[in-house]
């Protein structure tokens, strides 16, 4: 790949990588490693599994460079499909579904409002992560794809190998489940409530 070809299309990069161009493959990695890693991380609830799954995903791409057909699916769709399969396989082997590591639960506050609301927001997000992690994988994957990664229904359908209508219904069902989880009565002595009382 010539220097300054960072605006090359995925198809061009793939062609160059197929011919052994290291820089072209590095650019493909640069473009897609974040979405691959984030998908695997949210899907598995584990940064270490996500790291392994990302590594395996790019190994599969390396192996299948000659067989990949750009006219059949975009590279992003292909990579989502691969990382989905790799992550599911890892989870099936390890039987590990709701093991959120600490990095998942913590996060920077979204705003700098009063500490009580910031903490409540962080708690809500932590709970959302737990709820997503507890969803059946067929629901979890469509939530991650369509809601968190903003993948279109059509692309999500191609990734999970299901009709678009199925993707829509799974997403709706998943949101219903999540809403039900949030409607459950909370503990009266939640941390956010306690902090709000202290600051009042």
């Amino acid at each position, binding site marked *: 790949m010539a220097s300054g070809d960072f605006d090359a299309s995925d198809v061009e990069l793939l062609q160059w990588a197929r011919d052994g161009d290291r820089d072209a493959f590095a650019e493909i990695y640069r473009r897609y490693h974040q979405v691959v890693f*984030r998908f695997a991380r949210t899907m598995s609830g584990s940064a270490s599994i996500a*790291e392994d799954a990302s*590594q395996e995903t*790019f190994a599969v791409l*390396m192996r299948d460079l*000659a067989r990949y057909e750009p006219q059949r699916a975009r590279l992003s769709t292909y990579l989502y499909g691969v990382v989905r399969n790799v992550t599911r396989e890892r989870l099936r082997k390890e039987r590990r579904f709701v093991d959120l590591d600490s990095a998942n639960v913590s996060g920077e506050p*979204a705003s700098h409002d009063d500490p009580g609301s910031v903490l409540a927001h962080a708690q809500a997000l932590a709970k*959302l992560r737990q709820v997503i992690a507890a969803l059946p994988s067929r629901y979890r994957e469509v939530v991650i794809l369509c809601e968190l990664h*903003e993948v279109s229904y059509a692309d999500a359908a191609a990734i999970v190998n299901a009709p678009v209508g199925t993707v829509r219904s799974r997403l709706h069902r998943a*949101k219903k489940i999540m809403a039900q989880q949030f409607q459950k009565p909370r503990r009266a002595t939640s941390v956010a409530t306690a902090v709000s009382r202290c600051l009042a």
Partner: protein
Amino acid sequence: MNTDHGDPSLHHVDRLLEAMAAEDARVEPPARLQVVVMQMWDDTWRRRQSSPLSDASAWRGAWWFAATAAAVAAMVLSLALPQSARPTKSEPAHAVNLQGGAGGGPGEGILLVADAALEPTAMTVVRVRMRASVLATLGMRVGPDQDDTVTVEVLVGEDGVARRIRPVRPLSDPANPTGVKYQR
């Protein structure tokens, strides 16, 4: 974000999902991941360069070449056998074993065309698989590998005429280097 409902509880979930997406967008994979992946790339290409046939397309090319060569050899073999010399079930062909059949030199195997074999000409060895029963009609009994087939080498001259045929020597049987038993 796909918001296609008016349910307030679902709206709350949507807002949380938006916030989670924004938070996740800041997540960066560890830097060592890129190092590992590119190391895999380097290893893969080093292996491919040291072994050209490890590439899938190269294997496909080799397979097509072997298949074409086998087809050509089979055609040449069938044309090289005169109709009168073709064996019947009751009377096997009298093939000529030049050097007792166990030698490793260029003269070993079954002589198919006597006159042509004596002429000095450039030869090509074509390796093909054929039915053991077909080989038996030439007077060679070889234990089949699988699917009742044996691997043989056919010596083909520049004129396309097959001169000799011999089974491929099995490496796993040092006691019987050729694996051939000739009919009397």
